[in-house]
C-alpha cells in the first residue's frame, strides 16, 4: 500500500512538473514570436511546395514555424484549446464556418493583403457561402468531389452518381470513407441538398447507402489513388486534386463530376483570434496569393488554384485547360459547398454513417 501511495505521489508530482514545463515553454515561445518576427503556420500535410517557405523567410525576414494536420477534425480541437498559438491556419469551408460560429477567428485586414486581387472573384463569391463578406478567409485551393472511373472496365461513359448504386458494378466500387462526402453523394443523387437538415431526407439517404454496402469493395480515402491506378476497381469516389495525378499514372482513368451535382470545396487561410503575430500572418497570406507562388504550389500539389493570375502563367496547355482542375462554369453551377450543420446534426450524420457501415 505504501509503495502504491508512493508511486501515485510520484505520478502526481511528475504530472504537475510536466504541465508546469509545458506552459512555461509556451510562454517563452509566444514572447519570442511577438518580438522577433515569427509566424506559426498550420496547414494540411503535403499541401505546399516547401521552397515557398524558404522564399517567404528570405523575402520578409520572418521566421516560419510550420506544422501540419491530417484532417479538419484533428486541427479543430488544437485551435479551440488554444494551448499552441498558431498565427495562420488552412481549414476547409464548413470548418471555417464552425470556427466563425464559435468565435475562434480574427477579421482580416485586407490593407496587408493587396494580392487578394489575384483571386478570381467567383471564388470569393463562393466563399461567402460560409464566410459572409469574406471577412475571415482567403481561398487557397479548391476542388470538386467526383467519380474516377476506369474506361476499360465500364461499358458506357459514367455521368451519374447512380453508377455507384448500380448492381452491375457490384464489388467494383470504392466508396469514400468520409461522413459528409458519403451523405453528400446520397443526398444529391436523391435530389436533396447536401446540407440537408431534414431527418426524413437523411433517413432516405441512409437507406440508399445501406443498400449500397453489399456492392462496395472498400471504404477508403487516400488508398483510392493507388487502387484505381492498379485497376482494382471500376469506380471510385475521389477529390479532383488527386485525379490529375492518377490520370498521369494510368491513362485509362477518367474523372467526372456527375450531372446531379456535387460538392465543391474550398480550403482557405484564416487567422485564429488568439494569434500573436497577426501582421506576419497577413504577410504570409499575401505571399500565398502572389501569382508565382500560387503557381509553384499548384504545380507541386496539383490541387486547383483560385488564383486567376497564376492560372494564366501555367505553361502546359493540357493542365491550363484541364476540365478536371478548372471545371466549366456549367459544372460549378451544379456544385454546392458544405455548411457547418451544428454539433447535433453532425453527430446525427455520424450515427447514421455508422449504421451504414456496421451491417
Amino acid at each position: 500500500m505504501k509503495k502504491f501511495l508512493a508511486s501515485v505521489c510520484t505520478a502526481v508530482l511528475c504530472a504537475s512538473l510536466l504541465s508546469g514545463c509545458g506552459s512555461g515553454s509556451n510562454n517563452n515561445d509566444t514572447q519570442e514570436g511577438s518580438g522577433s518576427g515569427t509566424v506559426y503556420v498550420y496547414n494540411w500535410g503535403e499541401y505546399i511546395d516547401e521552397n515557398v517557405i524558404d522564399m517567404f523567410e528570405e523575402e520578409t525576414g520572418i521566421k516560419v514555424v510550420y506544422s501540419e494536420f491530417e484532417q479538419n477534425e484533428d486541427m479543430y480541437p488544437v485551435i479551440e484549446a488554444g494551448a499552441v498559438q498558431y498565427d495562420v491556419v488552412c481549414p476547409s469551408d464548413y470548418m471555417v464556418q464552425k470556427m466563425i460560429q464559435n468565435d475562434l477567428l480574427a477579421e482580416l485586414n485586407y490593407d496587408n493583403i493587396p494580392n487578394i486581387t489575384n483571386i478570381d472573384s467567383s471564388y470569393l463569391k463562393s466563399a461567402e457561402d460560409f464566410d459572409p463578406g469574406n471577412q475571415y478567409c482567403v481561398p487557397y485551393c479548391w476542388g470538386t468531389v467526383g467519380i474516377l472511373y476506369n474506361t476499360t472496365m465500364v461499358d458506357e461513359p459514367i455521368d451519374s452518381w447512380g453508377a455507384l448504386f448500380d448492381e452491375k458494378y457490384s464489388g467494383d466500387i470504392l466508396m469514400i470513407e468520409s461522413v459528409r462526402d458519403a451523405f453528400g453523394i446520397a443526398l444529391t443523387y436523391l435530389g436533396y441538398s447536401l446540407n440537408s437538415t431534414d431527418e426524413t431526407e437523411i433517413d432516405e439517404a441512409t437507406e440508399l447507402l445501406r443498400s449500397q454496402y453489399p456492392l462496395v469493395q472498400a471504404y477508403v480515402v487516400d488508398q483510392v489513388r493507388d487502387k484505381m491506378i492498379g485497376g482494382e476497381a471500376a469506380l471510385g469516389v475521389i477529390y479532383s486534386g488527386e485525379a490529375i495525378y492518377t490520370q498521369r499514372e494510368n491513362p485509362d482513368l477518367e474523372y467526372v463530376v456527375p450531372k446531379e451535382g456535387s460538392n465543391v470545396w474550398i480550403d482557405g487561410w484564416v487567422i485564429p483570434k488568439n494569434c500573436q503575430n497577426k501582421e506576419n500572418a497577413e504577410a504570409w497570406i499575401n505571399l500565398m496569393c502572389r501569382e508565382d507562388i500560387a503557381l509553384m504550389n499548384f504545380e507541386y500539389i496539383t490541387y486547383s488554384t483560385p488564383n486567376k493570375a497564376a492560372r494564366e502563367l501555367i505553361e502546359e496547355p493540357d493542365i491550363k485547360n484541364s476540365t478536371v482542375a478548372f471545371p466549366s462554369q456549367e459544372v460549378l453551377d451544379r456544385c454546392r459547398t458544405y455548411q457547418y450543420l451544428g454539433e447535433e446534426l453532425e453527430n446525427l450524420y455520424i450515427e447514421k454513417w455508422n449504421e451504414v457501415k456496421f451491417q
Partner: protein
Amino acid sequence: MSRDKKVEKKLKEELQGKKKRNNALLASPYIIWMAIFIIVPLFMIAYYGLTDKENGSFTLANIKLILDPVNLKALWLSIRLSVISTLICLLLAYPIAMILRSLNMKRSSFIVFIFILPMWMNFLLRTIAWQNILERNGILNTILSFLHLPTLNIINTSAAIILGMVYNYLPFMILPIYNVLIKIDNNVINAARDLGANGLQTLLKITLPLSLPGVISGITMVFVPSLTTFVISNILGGNKVVLIGNVIEQQFKVVNNRNAGAGLSLVLMVFVLASMALLSKYDKEAEGKSIW
C-alpha cells in the same frame, strides 16, 4: 568477542540499509517511467471515460454507449475474430514449438531467428504488403491466374483480417510456448515413457500441462492485441469490417469526443482484464494439478 559481534551486526545492518537505498535508487527510473507512461494515462482514461463532455460532471453515459447495437455488434465481431485467430495461432504454434524443441540448439535457434526476422520491419508495412498480396489484381491472384487456377477474393472480408492477425501475432504465440517447452527436463518425458505411457499420453499428461504457462502467456499476447486492433481491420478490411478498435479510433479522431472514446476503452479494458483473470485462474489450477 561480543563487541566484535555487535560491530559486525551494525556493519551488516548498515550494509543492508545501503543496499535498500541503492535498490530504491536503481528502481526510480522504472517507477518514474511507469508513473508517467502507464499510471497517469490510465487515470486520464478513467477520468475522461467517467465524466461528461460538456460540464465534466460524473456520468456513466460513456460506458453505456457500449449497449448501442452498433457498438455491441463491433465488440462481438472483435471478440469472435480475435478468438478465432488466437485458436489458429495456438494450433499452428504448438506443433512448431514441439518441432523446435526436438531439434538441436543450433538449428532451432536459427528457425526461431527466421520467425523473428520479419519483425525487424514495421508491422504496418507488412500489413500493407499483405494488402498488395491479397488484392484482386494482387500478387497472389496474378500467380493463381497464371497457373489457370481460380482466383481468391478475400480482401476486405473477415477472413483477410484473421489472416492479418495470425500473421502478425504468430511469433508471440510460438516464442513463449517454445521457451517453456525447452525447459522441460527430458528425464521427465523419459520417465513417463518408462512407466508405459504412449506418445499421446505423454503429450496430454506431461508435456501439455507443463507447457501451460507458455500457452497461457501466448494466448494473452495474441488475444489482447487482436481484440484491440484497428490498423489491421483498416488496411485489410477496407473499412467494411469494423471492429471495436475502429469505433474507439473514430470517437477520438472524427467525432472528437474523447469522453466517449475513453468510456468505450474502459469497457474494452474490462474484457481484457476478465480474459486475463480467467486465464491466470486456469493457469494456477493447472500448476496445482501438475504437482500432484
